[in-house]
Structures are given as structure tokens and as C-alpha cells.
């Protein structure tokens, strides 16, 4: 075995400049694949990490009969257009392990700020934020308890009998959880975090499948170039075992180098990647570092997969020593491939918005693979049509080449086809941003018990005027729950929209000068009002309609970001794979190209043929897979198609097309150089 390895190493090094170039192409392909694979793996681990770090803020009530260690209440407060997560903790059992991120159990009257909150509280006037936390600042919430570095979190110590700890459930579960008696500060992942994990999983499938296809193609590249040499070895009597071992070893040596380079590249890229904002904030570098086990697993798996793929590609040569020496009319691709795609597509309507994320991921993966199966068939078809209708030599060459090796042509365009699928799928799904109108950001609302409505209204007016906030306070709503509405920026007693449905505590027609637009209010004044009203109703903060829309706004932004990330990854794969396959096809055919040029064939014709070879299937397959992607998105489509988003995605796809075309054109100098040899010989 070591003899085989040594021989493979010599073959690899002795391959000459072009042989090394070929190995280099494979290494680059593997490096890019590894880098993106690590990213895909890390993205899942990163969301997992976020979910874990957030879990303690989603308290699980202590079981019946279990002694509670503490009471915990979580509330979502707002400052400017950001969340502040306020966690109130009352310790019942001394000696309980402190909450994550805290060095000790909080005492009543103490508060811990996350670093970002501490900074913001210092930066804003006290009346806008800091005054909401009159407690003594006892420390900083550690990173291990924060979803992201910019998160605003406050942890307060409370007495078990304080009003906050005995408050009733909030009207809206999204704004917080009622005080719970907990056995410890562990909790469970929030539904939001789980949703993000599911989305990350789907995004991973969308990224990893093309990556694997690309990696396999890269591996077969090594084989394609080695075909002749290995067939020769086989002819001189190397056993199939030796040939297989040598090929696998050669591919794996190359791949190991590429994988290592990819891991280093990924490491260098982490600082950039951490800046991608999802769910309101960027990432910790540690989130995106997949850790030694995952990294070594990827570093081990990639060369193995490449080696395996190379061996599979070798089958032909091993079966017959003449293997590739003879070029025959290839059997046409079987139609079964298309049937596979149709079957996979037939499963799509069974999906729906209610389908489990795992099932969606599996079906998407299947459609992906089916596209990859059907691709060569369609390319072969395109080739036959092109060849039949071609007038000039370039079209004829392109068509015949497509028909001759549809798989190779497919490898060049599969990346963009896959991206087209992703773009079609996400593009159709992205909800229009216009769905969320301009919500009222100036009217704070606070639900109050009906019995205390008038007392609280009076106190609110008092607090607001003490804080020097001009606002109109009124009570709306029926029954036991009333809403205290505070229109910031309007003179007290000034009528407004909210007054129309009110109970008559105030009235009067709206005044034109009274701030006609409901949303346009001084954000600082709103925050002063929020701060003034803080604690008016224990355990509850005043919110505007815009605050309540914030999750939706963030989700939309995240879908946009996710789309851009997934598309960027796919395009990278597509462009790199197009460049590499184009270059390697020049290398593979250098003798023929050189002889053609020698006989006076203009390079222009060869270049045009190579361009047509890529662009024709690119256009057809790219368009086709966008359509398939849209079809797959149909069952999930909940809203009208987002025309703007679709346009952006189409621009992205067009850029991808241009990238692939450019990557193909980049191999033109290579063609020039390999055909410059006046006496081409097969190597």
C-alpha cells in the first residue's frame, strides 16, 4: 500500500505543469467546497448555540411537588426600535446555581446589564432608558447567556413578593411570560429559536446538495484527466486494485490539501461572516467556528468522498483497459431520469405550510437530486436539437459535444441551475415587505385592569408631565381589560384617531396641527414616555403598534438576509465550478484543439463553440430550474408574490449567468496556450 502511495505521489508530482494545473484545479474546487461546507455546518451549529444560550429565558415551570428554586418572569421591553429582554428573578432557595451569564445569584435591588445594554444606557439620556432600571448595577451578563453580542438584556433581582413577581399573565404571550416557579435556570429553546433552526436546516440543504454535486464533479475531474494515463497503466498490466488504489490515493492527496486550504480560508472568513445580522444581531466568532470535532469530521470526510467519487468514476477504465481510448456513440440518457424528477415534483403538492421542517428539507433535497438526475438528459436533448439546427461550425461543434457528453456539460451549468432552483423557491416565498404597513410608533398602549383604569390614567398623566413628555392619555376598550393609550407628541385633551373608538373620557375633533401622522413621533420622546410609564402596571411595559410589528419586520429582514447568503453561496459554487470545468475540458481536449488549430481552425470558432456549449444549456437549465423552484414554493405561498423581491432575485440570477459565462471565458487564455504547442502529443 505504501508503495502504491509513493507511486501515486510521484505520478501526481511528475504530471508536469499541466498535470499540476489539473491537480490544482481539483484542489481549488475542493477548497471552495470545504469552505462552504464548513459554513453550512457552522450555520446550523450557530443557530443551535443561539437556541441553547437563549433557553434559560424561556423558563419551564417546576413540576408538581418539586420544590421551586426561584420565580422567574421574562418581559420584552423596547427602546428605539430594539428589544430589551428584561428577566426578573426572585431566588427562593439559596444555593441554587445562578442563571447563565451571572457570576452569582441576584439579590433584590440588583441588576445585571448585557454589555450592549450597559453601553446604550450610558449613551442615552437617563430618562429614556437608564431610569427604567433604578437598581444597583451589580455586574455584566456574560456572553454565554446572550443570543448575540449586540443583544440588550437586563437581569434583575426581586423579592419573591414584589409586584413584578406576582403579576398576572400578560395579554400577549409574545411580549413575555408570566412569573413562573422554576426548579432551576435551564428552560427550553424558544419557539422562535426552533423556527430559525428549521430555516437554517432548509438553507443548509439548499447549499449542501449543490456543494456535494460540485465536489463529486471535481473528483471526477481528476479521473477524467488521468483516464489515459491509467488506461495505459492498465494496459501494461497494473491490476484493477492497483489502479483503483492509485487513483483514490491521488485524488485524496489532492483533496486533503484542498480541504485544509478550505478550512483555513473559512477561518479567515469568520470575522466577515459574524457581521451577517440575523434575528436582530450579529454573531459571536465562536458561533461560526464549528469546533474541532466538526472541522476534523469535515476534513476527513471531504477527501474520503472525493476518493470515493474518483473510484466510482474509474469503474469504466477498470472494467476495460481500452476504456476511454475508444470513443463511441454514447447511448442516449435514459428517460427514467426525467421520470425521477416528475415523481419528486409530484410529491411537492403534498407539502403545505403545516409540513414539518424535516419533511420539507427531505422533499427539497429529493427535488434537488432529481434535477441533478434529469439535467444531463435535458442537456443531451438540447445538444441534439442544437446539432440538428446548427448552421455554422461553432454551433455544430457545441451541439455534438453536448450530445456526446451531456454529463460534462451539465457539470458546468449545474451550479447555476441549482441556484436558479433556490432563487425560484425563495424568491416566490419571500413575502412582500409592503405587507407591514407603517405602524403607529407614537401611541403607547398598556393594558390595565378596568377597576384601576381611572387611577392609572391619572398616575400616567402625572408621570408623563413629570418626565416632561407631551402626550394625550386616554382609556379605550371594553370589559375587564382596558387599554391605556398614550399618544406621545399630542397635547393633552387633543383628539385623535384613537379617540374615535374610545369610551368618551376625552373627545374633541382632531386638530390639523396636532401631529397628523400617527407614526411620526420623536423616538426620544416615546422612549421617555416608556421610561416614565415603566412599572405603572407591574410586569408590563407600554408598547406601540410598531413595537408589536418588530418581530415581523425582523423576520422579513432575516428572510432577505438568508436568501442573499444562500444565493451567494450557490453562485460561488456555480461560478467556481463553471470555471474549473471549463478549464479542465480545455486540458482534456488539448490534443484535439491543438491539431484543429494547427490545421488552421480559427481560435475564434473554438471559443465560440465552447461558449455555446455553456450558454445554451445554461439558459435552458437555469430558466427551467427557476420554474421548478417556483413550483416547489407554491404549496407554501401564503401571500401575494413579492414582485420587488422577485426582480432582485432575477438580477442575482442574471449576475450568476454572467459569472458563469465569465468563468468560461477565463479559460480562453488556457486554450490559447495549450494550442500554441506546434507538436501536440497525447501524454
Amino acid at each position, binding site marked *: 500500500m505504501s508503495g502504491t502511495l509513493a507511486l501515486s505521489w510521484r505520478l501526481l508530482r511528475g504530471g508536469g505543469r499541466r498535470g499540476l494545473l489539473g491537480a490544482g484545479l481539483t484542489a481549488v474546487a475542493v477548497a471552495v467546497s470545504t469552505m462552504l461546507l464548513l459554513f453550512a455546518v457552522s450555520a446550523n451549529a450557530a443557530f443551535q448555540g443561539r437556541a441553547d444560550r437563549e433557553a434559560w429565558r424561556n423558563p419551564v415551570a417546576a413540576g408538581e411537588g418539586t420544590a421551586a428554586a426561584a420565580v422567574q418572569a421574562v418581559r420584552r421591553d423596547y427602546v428605539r426600535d430594539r428589544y430589551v429582554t428584561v428577566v426578573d428573578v426572585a431566588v427562593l432557595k439559596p444555593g441554587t446555581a445562578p442563571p447563565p451569564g451571572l457570576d452569582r445569584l441576584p439579590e433584590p435591588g440588583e441588576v445585571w446589564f448585557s454589555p450592549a445594554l450597559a453601553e446604550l444606557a450610558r449613551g442615552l439620556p437617563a430618562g429614556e432608558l437608564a431610569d427604567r432600571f433604578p437598581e444597583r448595577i451589580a455586574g455584566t451578563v456574560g456572553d454565554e447567556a446572550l443570543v448575540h453580542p449586540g443583544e440588550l438584556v437586563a437581569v434583575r433581582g426581586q423579592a419573591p413578593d414584589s409586584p413584578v413577581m406576582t403579576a398576572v399573565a400578560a395579554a400577549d404571550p409574545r411580549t413575555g411570560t408570566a412569573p413562573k416557579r422554576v426548579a432551576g435556570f435551564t428552560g427550553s429553546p424558544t419557539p422562535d429559536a426552533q423556527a430559525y433552526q428549521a430555516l437554517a436546516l432548509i438553507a443548509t440543504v439548499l447549499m449542501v446538495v449543490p456543494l456535494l454535486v460540485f465536489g463529486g464533479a471535481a473528483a471526477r475531474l481528476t479521473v477524467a484527466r488521468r483516464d489515459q494515463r491509467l488506461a495505459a497503466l492498465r494496459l501494461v498490466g497494473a491490476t484493477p486494485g492497483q489502479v483503483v488504489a492509485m487513483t483514490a490515493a491521488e485524488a485524496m492527496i489532492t483533496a486533503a490539501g484542498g480541504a485544509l486550504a478550505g478550512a483555513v480560508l473559512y477561518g479567515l472568513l469568520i470575522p466577515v461572516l459574524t457581521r451577517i445580522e440575523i434575528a436582530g444581531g450579529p454573531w459571536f466568532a465562536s458561533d461560526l467556528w464549528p469546533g474541532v470535532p466538526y472541522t476534523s469530521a469535515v476534513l476527513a470526510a471531504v477527501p474520503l468522498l472525493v476518493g470515493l467519487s474518483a473510484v466510482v468514476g474509474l469503474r469504466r477504465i477498470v472494467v476495460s483497459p481500452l476504456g476511454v481510448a*475508444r*470513443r*463511441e*456513440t454514447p447511448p442516449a440518457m435514459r428517460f427514467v431520469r426525467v421520470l425521477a424528477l416528475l415523481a419528486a415534483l409530484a410529491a411537492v403538492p403534498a407539502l403545505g405550510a403545516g409540513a414539518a421542517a424535516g419533511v420539507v428539507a427531505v422533499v427539497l433535497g429529493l427535488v434537488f437530486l432529481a434535477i441533478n438526475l434529469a439535467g444531463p438528459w435535458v442537456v443531451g436533448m438540447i445538444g441534439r436539437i442544437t446539432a440538428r439546427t*446548427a*448552421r*455554422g*461550425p461553432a454551433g*455544430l*461543434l457545441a451541439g*455534438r*459535444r453536448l*450530445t*456526446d*457528453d451531456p454529463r460534462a456539460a451539465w457539470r458546468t451549468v449545474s451550479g447555476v441551475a441549482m441556484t436558479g432552483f433556490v432563487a425560484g423557491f425563495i424568491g416566490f416565498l419571500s413575502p412582500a415587505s409592503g405587507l407591514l404597513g407603517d405602524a403607529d410608533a407614537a401611541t403607547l398602549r398598556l393594558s390595565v385592569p378596568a377597576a384601576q383604569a381611572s387611577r392609572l390614567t391619572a398616575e400616567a398623566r402625572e408621570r408623563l408631565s413629570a418626565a416632561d413628555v407631551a402626550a394625550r392619555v386616554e382609556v379605550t376598550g371594553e370589559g375587564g381589560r382596558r387599554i391605556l393609550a398614550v399618544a406621545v407628541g399630542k397635547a393633552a385633551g387633543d383628539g385623535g384617531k384613537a379617540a374615535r373608538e374610545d369610551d368618551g373620557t376625552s373627545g374633541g375633533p382632531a386638530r390639523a396641527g396636532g401631529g397628523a401622522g400617527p407614526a411620526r413621533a420623536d423616538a426620544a420622546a416615546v422612549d421617555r414616555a416608556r421610561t416614565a410609564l415603566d412599572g405603572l402596571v407591574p410586569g408590563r411595559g407600554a408598547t406601540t403598534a410598531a413595537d408589536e410589528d418588530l418581530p415581523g419586520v425582523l423576520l422579513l429582514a432575516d428572510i432577505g438576509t438568508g436568501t442573499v447568503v444562500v444565493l451567494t453561496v450557490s453562485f460561488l459554487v456555480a461560478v467556481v465550478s463553471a470555471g474549473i470545468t471549463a478549464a479542465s475540458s480545455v486540458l482534456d481536449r488539448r*490534443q*484535439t484543439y491543438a*491539431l*484543429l*488549430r*494547427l*490545421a*488552421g*481552425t*480559427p481560435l475564434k*470558432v473554438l471559443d465560440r463553440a465552447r461558449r455555446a456549449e455553456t450558454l445554451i444549456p445554461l439558459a435552458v437549465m437555469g430558466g427551467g430550474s427557476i420554474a421548478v423552484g417556483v413550483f416547489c414554493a407554491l404549496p407554501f405561498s401564503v401571500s401575494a408574490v413579492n414582485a420587488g423581491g422577485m426582480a432582485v432575485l432575477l438580477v442575482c440570477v442574471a449576475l450568476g449567468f454572467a459569472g458563469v459565462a465569465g468563468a468560461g471565458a477565463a479559460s480562453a487564455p488556457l486554450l490559447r496556450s495549450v494550442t500554441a504547442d*506546434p*507538436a*501536440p502529443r*497525447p501524454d
Partner: protein
Amino acid sequence: MNVVLEGSGLVKRFGPAVALAGVGLAVGGEAVAIMGPSGSGKSTLLHCLAGIMKPDGGEVRLLGQRVDTMRERERSALRRTRFGFVFQFGQLLPELPAEENVALPLMLGGVRRGEAVRRAREWFGPLGLGGMEGRRPGELSGGQAQRVAIARALVTRPAVVFADEPTGALDQATGHDTMRLLVEATRGNDASLVVVTHDPQVARWCDRTVEVRDGRVLAGGPARDGRDRDGRDRGGPHAGPGAPGPYAGHAQGEPVTQVLPGADR
């Protein structure tokens, strides 16, 4: 003899190695065999004559026109229109059927595809390739593939056909058959032939043999006997594709046919 192609004082160096040390060779409507030991400079001479390489010294003229001073683009066009090439192997595009391989040079010259394929097909019968029009190079035997290559070299009706060990990859019997077809077909189409070969028997079908050694021409002389050794005459291909190609009187000036012996058009 009407000289069609002439190289004189050709010098070619590869670094310190001298591949050609002042070679002269004139070809005029005849078949010339270039012989000599391995590494003596035969291929280099052929490449210089065919405008594939620029010699370091000396000149090459086609019908009096300097070839060696042309720019690559012009030489490329010249190779495409006035020369034909047959190599040892590998010049056929594996994914094109035989007839399209033959038609390709015509299409490169602007002939419509249907017409080009029709004219290409005319070569198959005379070359003994009847019924193989639709086969891929991989589905042909070595000798058949070389005959397709011969058709491809001649389909544009070139002034000179260059062949570098065209039968080197074939067994002797097949090689001889192929070689004779090459010689006869070029003659039948009024083209000159420059062929590099190691096989003295192959050289016998040519009109003349040039011996190259260490980059110099040793001796030249007519082959002992040639065309009629087996009583075969030069029928065959030229009878088939009768229509003159688009290059029969190409822009370079005087129609080649005027200076070629046996011009019957």
C-alpha cells in the same frame, strides 16, 4: 517542374539544439517523402514548410509568396485554405460523425452545412469508406480513421497536403493501403504531398525521397518506382468529388490548378 512550395536555407533552433541547419526543399505537384532517423528534424521541417512554425532563418514561399513572414492569423488562414494535414492520429473530433469531421473544413470556409456534408460524403465511396459516414471516430478502425483524415485534408482541395507519419500507428498492410490511397488521392486532386515516413516501402509510392540527417538534407532522388507498381493507376478519389472546392481559385492569386501537373479542370 513548377514549384508550388519552396523552403530554402531553413534554420530552426530550440535553445542550443539545432533542429534544422539550413535545409532547402522545393515541391511542385509531386509526392515527396521525407525520411531520416528519429530526431533528425523531419517534423520540424514539415512544420516550417506548413507555416506552423516560424523558422529562425531562411524563407518559405507558396507560389512565390513569402509564408514565413506572415502573421499567425494569415498563416492560420493559409493552412485552412491552401494546405491539408494528416497526422499520426488524434486529428478527428471524437464527438463528430465521420462525415461532419470531413465537412468541418468546408464549413470553416463558409460553405453551408448541407452543401458541405454533401461534398464530404462524396469522398467516402472512393476511399472505401462507404456506409461509414455516420460513424464516430471511435467506431472506426485505425486505418479507416486515417482515410477519413485523408478525406478531411483533401476536401478543401488544398495546394499541398502535409502528412507526418500518417501510418505510424497502423500495421504494415493497413499502413501501405492507407499510404497509397493518400498518394493517389492527392495526385488525383492535383495537390502536392509532403509526407514524413520511416517506412522505405511507403516512400516508394512517392515521386521523390528526401533524406534528412542532423538537420540537413543528405540526398534526394526519385523513388525507384511508384505509382504503377501494382498496376493500379491513380483513379479513385478524384473521380468522385468532381465539383471544384471553394478554394480552387482562392484569393491568393493564380489558381493552383494552372501550375499543378495533370490539372484537368
